């Protein structure tokens, strides 16, 4: 990763965030919290709740990508590695106002982690003890990443490996690259 590309992406992220209308993170956290509580009522089993959150996130991701490409100024992306950097430097900043970092690449370079210390979704949240070790409260984000990447032909699997709500020192989402789909649709942000 050249540092000039990294700084270009940082700037794109800052610019996209600066340009967008904002809402209070408190309102988002409050809304997300109420939503998760309802999903817990419906599914009860933490594993099922995690799955449902991921699915809902996927449905956001497949729609959000268009908005992302149109507003971020990103027009192409050649590899999984680049995508991971763009997600953490541009997308996290643009949508959530936070910057994440990419690390923990494996030797095959098909798996890495997105790490972020601040999580606007989880502000003021305390998990009930019975969920502390089983619920991934922000699992929606995994689905968003998977859905968005799928729309640009990159198939991945994502999962939380660290979550501050569980007492971890940071938040970490692991992304594993599966495959690149063949029919390359050109990225187009002019529509």
């Amino acid at each position, binding site marked *: 990763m050249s540092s000039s590309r990294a700084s270009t992406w940082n700037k794109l992220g800052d610019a996209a965030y600066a340009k967008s*209308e904002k*809402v209070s993170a408190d*309102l*988002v956290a409050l*809304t997300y919290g109420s939503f998760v509580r309802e999903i817990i009522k419906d599914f009860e089993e933490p594993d099922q709740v995690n799955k449902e959150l991921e699915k*809902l996130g996927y449905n956001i991701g497949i*729609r959000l990508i268009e908005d992302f490409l149109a507003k971020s100024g990103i027009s192409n992306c050649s590899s999984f590695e680049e995508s991971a950097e763009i997600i953490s430097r541009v997308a996290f900043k643009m949508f959530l106002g936070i910057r994440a970092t990419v690390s923990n690449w494996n030797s095959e370079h098909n798996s890495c982690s997105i790490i972020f210390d601040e999580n606007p979704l989880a502000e003021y949240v305390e998990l009930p003890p019975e969920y502390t070790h089983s619920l991934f409260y922000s699992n929606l984000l995994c689905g968003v990443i998977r859905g968005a990447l799928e729309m640009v032909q990159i198939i991945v699997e994502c999962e939380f490996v660290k979550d501050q709500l569980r007492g971890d020192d940071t938040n970490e989402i692991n992304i594993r690259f599966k495959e690149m789909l063949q029919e390359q649709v050109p990225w187009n942000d002019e529509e």
Partner: protein
Amino acid sequence: MTEVAEESFDFLVMIMVDYFLGNDEKRKKVSLKDDLSTRRKVERLEAIGRDIGRRWLEKLSEGTPHFSTELDKVKFICKEFWIATFQKQIDNLKTNNKGTYVLSDKRFRSLLHVSETPDAIGQLEDYIIFPLGIIKGAFESLGMNCEVYGDCSSAPSCIFTVNLKEQE
């Protein structure tokens, strides 16, 4: 107060509508008002909005001096609350001085995106259920029990009629 892009909130609300009411395809098949189980879903989504509205208003009004009149409370909702929730203030406020307030918003946030999508026109009402809940919750938080109706027939403009149930 930290902030996130409004799109994040829009996407979140969009999947909440899908989650509680079913996705577009399913919703097209049943008219919301006819079907009892759908009506329960609508009520549930509205109830979640109310709960959020109540707590959100409490947060927003922290440190605000006590409201001396009913009109002060309504004005707080039309301005501070509306800006914090929907990014602009109400364009016009009318009252009959008998507990009915009519709030007009010419570009109501929750309808901006949907009203641009021709497919979604029939679903406009689905997208004001949650915000109606939030608004109702906000009024309740100020001790004003009320019914709130939204007319979105000329979206993205929306006219809210608030009928107070009892004078404070």
